């Protein structure tokens, strides 16, 4: 095995340990420890944003700027793909 392979194995083992421990130590499924932010959002969703859908109220109102970012990511990818497949001058 080359040095590079050994480094890859070590990296993989360390990350494995991290992920296994985090899956073991996080709170049990279905019993969150803390719910401040989400309770506040569910309570306010109808009166503040006028939507019946809590998820949409988060996506487009409470965290609307994230959605702008998300739309921008898609825009970036489209621009990137079209640019990569553009017609070059000498072709």
């Amino acid at each position: 095995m080359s040095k590079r392979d050994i480094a890859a194995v070590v990296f993989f083992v360390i990350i494995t340990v991290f992920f296994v421990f985090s899956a073991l130590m996080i709170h049990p499924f279905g019993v969150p420890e803390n719910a401040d932010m989400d309770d506040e959002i569910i309570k306010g969703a109808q009166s503040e944003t006028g939507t019946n859908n809590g998820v949409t109220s988060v996506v487009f109102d409470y965290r609307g700027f994230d959605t702008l970012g998300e739309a921008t990511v898609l825009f970036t990818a489209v621009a990137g793909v079209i640019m990569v497949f553009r017609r070059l001058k000498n072709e």
Partner: protein
Amino acid sequence: MNEMSKIVRTISSIAFPLIIIYGLYIISHGHLTPGGGFQGGAVVASGCAMILVAYGSIWTIDKIKEKNLSIFESIGAICFILLAIFGLGFGAVFFNNFLVGSDFLFGTIPSFGSTIANINTGGVIPLMNFAVGLKVIAGLFAIVLVMAYASGSKEEER
């Protein structure tokens, strides 16, 4: 990509309008039921991709150029960011939901708890859903179209 057999083309022509209507329904009811601009846009874009697969990329790129799709995408994105900037004029901050509680379009506020669906709610959210929907339709279809055309034209060269 070459066009497929006549059976496939006919079936996809029949299914295409239904898929479009279903996608538009998901977009326009985003504030009431599960779904929204991204999901509905993805449905419509996959309908368009079905047409692309059935008729072939050369036929499709004759009908609609990726440049035009890119313009549509820009318009969707500009509408979205303008709706955010309008909040700055009305409510003095970005992403202010300035239509909620007004007598104008989509201004009704539903009562707390379980309610029946009323499409005239949500403030700017339905408008944003439409803007994002337009953007996603044009964007995803442009990606698929460009990639299909580029990988297809290479095959012909060989």
